């Protein structure tokens, strides 16, 4: 069996082992590769910096569960830190069952109280609302009818000063949505952007990025954070390197492995084809 045949028939566990090595090595021994800042990171940073004004009301929506945490959690933390630097009111809610618990994990990283934000006055957590797109539509027409009590204290919304001026979608200036699938951006666009003109920025996993591009092109989504690498760039722009920056070296080496394997696999394919001819 020629070496190319051996490559074509390589035991996949060797490939898995290579994947482990290429990922674990830079995590144990950081390479410190420079991270160039992309236009995506700058767009997101500039939007939050220049288009989120003091006094705005923002929805901060974690539309993902534990499966999406590795890729979306770093950008959620970084964006939360950015938003907390501004004098905005924000409402935390989600339409994924694990969203509230993911937010609890975020609170262990970023405490709004450290930025002088008071719960119930500057921010509120409305928790999970079942029903997917139907829930998004219901929430847009009436917050108070869709959500009876807040998630943290279990008290009626009327007890919290922040909700005095938040009744419908027209009271919201921006939606920041981090998502892995459905419900997600298309549902936000249908129920909030098209119906009420609310601006939306979306942080999503890489798999969802190709589907978001037409919305970016048409201006329906104002900014996009596409995956872990851009999260790292955003953390650098904020001068708050975190989990994303810590993982980018491993992104580099893992992608290097993929490219090498594709090249080797195709070389083996073509050389085997030549031999057979």
């Amino acid at each position, binding site marked *: 069996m020629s070496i190319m045949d051996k490559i074509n028939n390589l035991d996949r566990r060797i490939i898995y082992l290579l994947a482990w090595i290429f990922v674990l090595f830079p995590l144990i021994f950081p390479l410190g590769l*420079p991270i160039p800042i992309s236009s995506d990171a700058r767009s997101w940073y500039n939007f939050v910096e220049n288009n989120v004004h003091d006094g705005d009301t923002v929805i901060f929506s974690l539309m993902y569960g534990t499966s999406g945490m590795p890729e979306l959690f770093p950008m959620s933390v970084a964006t939360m830190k950015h938003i907390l630097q501004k004098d905005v009111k924000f409402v935390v809610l989600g339409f994924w069952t694990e969203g509230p618990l993911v937010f609890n994990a975020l609170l262990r990283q970023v405490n709004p109280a450290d930025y002088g934000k008071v719960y119930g006055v500057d921010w509120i957590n409305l928790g999970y609302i079942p029903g997917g797109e139907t829930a998004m539509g219901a929430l847009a027409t009436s917050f108070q009818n*869709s959500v009876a009590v807040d998630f943290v204290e279990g008290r009626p919304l009327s007890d919290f000063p922040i909700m005095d001026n938040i009744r419908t979608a027209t009271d919201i200036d921006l939606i920041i949505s981090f998502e892995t699938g459905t419900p997600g951006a298309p549902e936000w666009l249908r129920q909030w952007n098209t119906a009420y003109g609310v601006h939306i920025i979306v942080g999503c996993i890489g798999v969802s990025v190709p589907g978001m*591009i*037409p919305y970016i092109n048409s201006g329906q989504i104002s900014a996009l954070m596409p995956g872990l690498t851009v999260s790292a760039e955003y953390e650098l722009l904020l001068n708050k390197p975190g989990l994303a920056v810590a993982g980018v070296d491993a992104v*580099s080496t893992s992608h*290097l492995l993929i*490219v090498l394997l594709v090249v080797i*696999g195709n070389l083996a394919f073509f050389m085997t084809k030549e031999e057979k001819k």
Partner: protein
Amino acid sequence: MTIIATLLQVIPYYFDIPVLSNVASTATNAVLLIVACATFVGVISVLMVHAKRVQRRTEGWYFSGLIIVFVVIMVLTGLPLQEFGLGSKNSIFNWIFTNIQTPLGGTMYSILAFFITSAAVRAFKARNIEAAIVLVSGTLMVMGNAPIFTNTVPVLVDISLWIRNIPNMATMRGVMIGAALGAVALAVRTLMGIERGYLRGGGED
């Protein structure tokens, strides 16, 4: 009933009829409750399947037993009875979520990274022109997402952005428009009562 529910949402959106808007709003909130009520459907289905396996002692029945045990624990500790110390703040519920659900959920989908790696060498071959285009654009995108490449060859960023914003955008826009037309057609067929596939089951047509 489907037609009524649909029209109840569509008509108030285009016509300003306050009474109808209020009814639609209440109906939407009622639907959220109806959806939440379905929560035990999954639990009962899982319990039925796996209880049968335990009862019949089929191969791997002890794993089914494990499933049943954890379903029961999570359901019981998660019941919204804060007065009895149960619910989302229950320590057992939270411990299981934090130390079992969270790692398992994150790990399940990350396994695909290995399968993609294996596919890269075994399946991702330029057998014809179309495959070659996928291969080249895919490889360029992979390189454009990794600082190790973009630092050495900065033009890769522009190339990957071009692939994303031109051919990918064209593809997705075309698919999106087609899918929107398809969705409208399906909705109209459902409203006309032609499409009733979602109501099938139970041994009847």
